[in-house]
């Protein structure tokens, strides 16, 4: 049973100018002088309410930095809400940052296994899928090579093939992925369509406003961490278009 519920969800976090604090600075500065590395509070999501049932296809739109990807990561369980309630029921699979997280020293086959384990597979189920993943990636003998010798394109091919070899109940997608060369892109788009059709529930972040109404039945327009509008996809997209267009004319 796939279900997503966000109730009054807020997400705030502190960032610092410098990446981290040093222990000796922390001890010395706390005692003797004000910090030269002040923290900043980021209110990334404000009072988000969302309820999705089986069959829903939600598109998230908005300008850069509006909190689109943050919502997705919150739904995936990577960020925890600072306040409010989050309920996500169903097996989640997320397609974002997929090119990250490879073990350079290990070869393609090994990487297929352990990335699949992370997606909740078991050795038995991986053994059954390995061949299909390898075939889809079209990497052939390169799979016997450590992945640190792979080109960026090959890496993405492998990542995409692994990440889409599952049948998710809840599918979270960030942007339309541009993967590999032209031939592979077409194949990847086909695979994405299949996956989206199979998923019980889908949330997708995209800037492709034309494709959005075909993929989604509902949409959320995010603005500075808040929901500006929510409703049927076509309406929200139209409202967003109007506002962006208005800005362009005013400028």
């Amino acid at each position, binding site marked *: 049973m796939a279900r997503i519920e966000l109730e009054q969800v807020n997400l705030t976090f502190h960032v610092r100018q410098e990446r981290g604090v040093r*222990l000796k600075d922390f001890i010395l500065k706390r005692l003797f002088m004000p910090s030269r590395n002040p923290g900043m509070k980021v209110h990334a999501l404000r009072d988000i309410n969302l309820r999705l049932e089986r069959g829903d296809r939600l598109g998230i739109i908005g300008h850069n930095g509006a909190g689109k990807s943050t919502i997705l990561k919150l739904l995936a369980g*990577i960020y925890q809400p600072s306040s409010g309630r989050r309920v996500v029921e169903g097996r989640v699979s997320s397609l974002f940052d997929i090119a990250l997280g490879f073990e350079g020293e290990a070869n393609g086959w090994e990487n297929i296994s*352990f990335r699949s384990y992370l997606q909740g597979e078991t050795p038995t189920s991986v053994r059954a899928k390995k061949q299909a993943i390898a075939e889809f990636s079209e990497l052939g003998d390169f799979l016997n090579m450590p992945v640190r010798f792979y080109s960026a394109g090959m890496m993405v091919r492998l990542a995409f093939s692994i990440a889409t070899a599952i049948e998710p109940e809840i599918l979270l997608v960030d942007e339309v992925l541009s993967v590999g060369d032209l031939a592979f892109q077409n194949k990847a788009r086909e695979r994405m369509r299949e996956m989206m059709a199979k998923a019980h529930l889908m949330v997708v972040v995209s800037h492709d406003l034309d494709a959005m109404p075909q993929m989604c039945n509902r949409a959320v327009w995010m603005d500075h961490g808040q929901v500006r509008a929510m409703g049927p996809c076509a309406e929200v997209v139209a409202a967003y278009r109007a506002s962006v267009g208005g800005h362009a004319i005013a400028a």
Partner: protein
Amino acid sequence: MQAYLGAIWKCRFFWLSLVKMDLRSRYRGSLLGLCWSLLHPIAMTTILCVVFRFAFHQALDTYAPLVFTGLTFWGFISASVIQGCGCFFQGESYIRQFPAPMAIYPLRNVLGAAFHFGIGIMLAMAIGFVYGPDVREIYGNPSATRFQQLLSLPSLLPTCLLLLMLGWSLSILFGLLSVRFRDTRHLTEIALQGMFYLTPVMYTIDTFKNQQRLTRLLHCNPLVPFLDLIREPILFARVPSLATYAASAAVVMVSVLLAVAALRIEERRLIFHL
């Protein structure tokens, strides 16, 4: 708590395969194979034996196994702590993609270190068996044979379990600390160097029995009971006393409680500090 452990268990295939991969890539293409794990403690043991032989006229047949067990133990502790400092940075790309429990990332290093430790201990047991103590003297039984010595070895099983818990919790603690404070690793390396000399790795506490204050200080070292747990069965063919087990268990308990508390606070916001 139970749910958390359940989540760790659920992704066991993931962290186990990472450990396996680490070991394989370490051994790959090296003629030494498993001896890789032993290279460092054996080389160090040789050096220390030579030094102590010339400087202090130490008898080698008792000293070599003593140093070797000490260094094997120390190797595990320092690997857990030092590699622990980098564990969350190492796992950052996974942390950013999958909501797995944070405690699995330190587990990767600790299990790798445990593997090397296990091989070291097995060699130590073999040495202890061949060059071990005179069992007839220890048991006060003139007809005792070397094989009776083996009976004390199963006492190492709970020891290994305790060590694993200790290594894991230390790794978590230092990992979280170094995410918060970037110079943790640097400071820890220095502190470990000092700790090495304060731990009876290349000597025994009895070496200093004339210096009461130093002996008292050494007894405060929380790592001492673990060394006793390892050395008693291997070097002296004795099952360690319950008090030694209790002391070690208490140390492990403190370390684990600290790690659980730290995880509870940091687990949710760790990602924002990476």
